[in-house]
């Protein structure tokens, strides 16, 4: 390909890419590409669901992983579509902005030679001179905030050209430009922000550094120096249970009472952290997004040494806070010990154990006991909520070799394990709060962007650009006035405005009605 062809080819490609049809196609493609992310669980949205799905579909998983289906909105093909759309958008905005600036300064275009050819027009004759008619027309159109231009044509004849609604195109340009602003805001968030979460037992505290987080997802350019040095304590957690009425069993007014300092040694402040009421410290936002129970469990080993003691986070599984948890005591002697089971905050039994209420009215934990190797020494990461049972043996009831030992304990209970393995006690129950901590730079940029987009959109959709022309000339000793108009918006219809203008210029004279034509809708389109 020689140079000329190459240039032509490039120009052709650019024209194709920035054509309205391509934009439309890319928009539909974007919509289509967004679908799989709502069907396949997304690792970013719900990591647990995603990993469960992956376990359940071992054959599909590698293929899906290749295709980026667990992370659709960060996948290269999704990015390719919106990048192409962005290029198309820029290629569309730039030339149109140029055209717009020219058009903004231009005078309204001169009246076409034959106004009665336009679908919407009126004509009438009057005894006023053309100058008088045109002066009136200018006044009337000026009042309607039209931009005006006067043209003298041949002797005794002239026309007024009027146009308004220039801001529509401005609105349209602002709208499309704002999309770029929103994208910039979102990009800032995902590059320079982070999302982290931590579970804090009520009574305990948190200080903002990486090691204290349970999960931490930084933006690709995030630097941990940007973490703000605040710290907080969860002093208390209030919750109001509904005992009666329709919402019985629900809770509301979750409030986490925080004491915090913005920096080490700073003044102590308090804040009631509630759902929908985040606390902002500098650029960081702190949210209460969950809560649950942490039974305090102590395991003493065969030597009577305390091998584990403390509140253990149990994860709620249903509305009544039946919660699941794992306790691990790797250092217990003679054998490592572990417990796995449920907490029932208000224990009931009916064809099986369940919790009848979310509040800890009559709590009971029901745990199976395991002994052996917990598999914690291999390194790597293991979940605190998962017990690797490959090297563990269930502990059986005293004198049985097939009935596993189940500890059903209420607060204050202590149970001795068989074979001198040790004792387990359930000392009480505490609460935990799940706290989400994030920095989202660019969120105001994005918000400003969409707000601006909305304004532009309203301008683009509701401002109706239209042109009106009035021509007056002497014909056979009288003045023939022709009025015509054109609505250049996509939803408009200028007939009413023309009729009202005609009525202003030529107050109805039943003897000489204006001769008018209003387009049949078919012609108008």
């Amino acid at each position, binding site marked *: 390909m020689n140079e000329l062809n190459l240039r032509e080819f490039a120009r052709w490609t650019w024209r194709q890419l920035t054509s*309205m*049809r391509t*934009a*439309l196609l890319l*928009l*539909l493609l*974007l*919509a289509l590409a967004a*679908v799989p*992310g*709502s069907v396949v*669980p*997304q690792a970013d*949205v*719900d990591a*647990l669901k995603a990993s469960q799905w992956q376990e359940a579909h071992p054959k599909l998983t590698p293929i899906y992983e290749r295709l980026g289906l667990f992370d659709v*909105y960060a996948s290269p093909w999704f990015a390719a579509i919106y990048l192409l759309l962005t290029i198309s958008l820029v290629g569309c905005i730039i030339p149109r902005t140029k055209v717009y600036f020219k058009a903004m300064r231009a005078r309204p275009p001169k009246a076409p030679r034959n106004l009665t050819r336009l679908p919407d027009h009126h004509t009438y004759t009057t005894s006023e001179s053309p100058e008088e008619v045109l002066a009136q027309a200018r006044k009337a159109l000026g009042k309607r905030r039209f931009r005006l231009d006067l043209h003298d044509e041949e002797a005794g004849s002239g026309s007024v050209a009027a146009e308004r609604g220039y801001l529509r195109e401005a609105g349209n340009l602002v709208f499309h430009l704002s999309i770029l602003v929103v994208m910039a805001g979102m990009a800032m968030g995902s590059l320079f922000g982070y999302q982290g*979460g931590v579970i804090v037992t009520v009574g305990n505290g948190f200080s903002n550094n*990486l090691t204290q*987080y*349970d*999960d*931490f997802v*930084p933006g690709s350019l995030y630097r*941990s120096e940007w973490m703000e040095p605040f710290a907080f304590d969860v002093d208390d957690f209030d919750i109001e249970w509904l005992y009666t*009425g*329709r*919402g019985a069993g*629900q809770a*509301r007014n*979750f409030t986490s009472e925080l004491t915090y300092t913005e920096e080490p040694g700073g003044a102590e402040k308090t804040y009631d952290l509630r*759902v*929908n*009421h985040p606390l902002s410290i500098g650029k960081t936002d702190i*949210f209460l*997004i*969950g809560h649950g129970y942490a039974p305090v469990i102590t395991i003493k080993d065969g030597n009577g040494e305390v091998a584990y003691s403390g509140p253990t986070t149990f*994860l709620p599984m249903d*509305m009544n*806070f039946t919660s699941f948890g794992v306790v691990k005591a790797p250092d217990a002697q003679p054998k490592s010990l572990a417990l796995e089971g449920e907490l029932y905050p208000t224990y009931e039994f009916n064809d099986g154990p369940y919790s009848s209420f979310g509040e800890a009215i009559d709590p009971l934990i029901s745990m199976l006991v395991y002994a052996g190797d917990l598999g914690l020494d291999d*390194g790597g*990461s*293991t979940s605190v*909520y998962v017990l690797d049972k490959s090297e563990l043996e269930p502990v059986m009831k005293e004198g049985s070799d097939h009935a596993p030992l189940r500890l059903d304990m209420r607060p204050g209970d202590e149970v001795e394990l068989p074979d001198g393995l040790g004792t387990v006690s359930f000392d009480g129950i505490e609460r935990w709060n799940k706290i*989400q901590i*994030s920095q989202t730079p660019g*969120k105001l940029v994005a*918000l400003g962007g*969409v*707000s601006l*987009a*909305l304004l532009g*959109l309203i301008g683009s959709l509701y401002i109706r650009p239209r042109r009106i022309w009035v021509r007056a000339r002497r014909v056979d000793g009288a003045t023939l006035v022709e009025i015509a108009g054109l609505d250049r918006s*996509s*939803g408009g*219809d200028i007939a009413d405005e023309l009729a009202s203008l005609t009525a202003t210029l030529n107050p109805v004279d039943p003897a000489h009605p204006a001769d008018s034509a209003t387009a*049949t*809708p*078919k012609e108008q*389109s």
Partner: protein
Amino acid sequence: MTDSQWEVLSNQGVTIAGVVYFLALLSHLIEWAGLRKVPHTEEVHTGKVALFGRLGLLLTMIAALAHFVALVGRGMAADPNRVPWGNMYEFVISSTFFVTLIYLVVYKKFKLSWMAPLVVGFVLSVLMVAVVWLHSPVAPLTEALLSPWLVIHVVSAVIATAAFSLGGILVILHLVKDRREKKGGPAPLYGYLARVPSTAVLDRLAYRMHAFAFPVWTFAVLITGPIWAHEAWSRYWNWDPKEVWAFITWVVYAAYLHARSTAGMRGRTASILAIIGLLTLWFNFIGINFFSTTSQHSYAEGAAVVEVIPVEQTVDPTA
């Protein structure tokens, strides 16, 4: 009045609205049966046919009033009192109310008498679906839903849904009428379709309806939704299935607006895009609640506890 009395009132309101909508539909059907014998060039202002037309309109207004009472009752029955859009049933009875309301408000301006049987029929059928399949007793909102943003976010989503639905009826009519016009031959003088305005008028009306709905939808899903999500869940945009489909709807309607201003795509192509938009809208609203398990917008399950996201303990938090 006690909460349960309010709820009874609300249920009665829906029942009465349903019955009156049915009577309104009946009146309009009688009207249109009569109009079939009159060429469309002739307008009918007197006589039995016109009477049934006016009766249908009056009944629609009465039904709308009962419908409104039902909404108020729903809100008053909740403790604390709240806006009546906390679950799918309430969302449907709210959006159908706005379908009727918007129709009545623009009835005169756009001369919509020909739309009457379709709008009333649509509202009646959707309302019946809501009563039969979606009805659920009044319940307090979950904590995350108690926010002034809920009011603004959902009311705008409801209004946009109503306007898009009306726009959908218009584009479907446009397609039907377009086929008839393309067939050629002399335009029929009699029949329902003959009295429906030309495709150009339908196209313009449909555009206006969508041009109203689109910014409202933008406000609902791209402004107030994210603000609320940021306060409740810490992320203003999370690609949650409900958000994904709201975005898809938005993009498809943007494509409709583009198609409509592109020569050669105005009309058929644009209409089809608008119908796809409407399908994605209603799928998002009903379908996602049933098919998706990961959505945090769990209207379907009634009251979920504040979501708990289990965390993994990792050795290196940055890994």
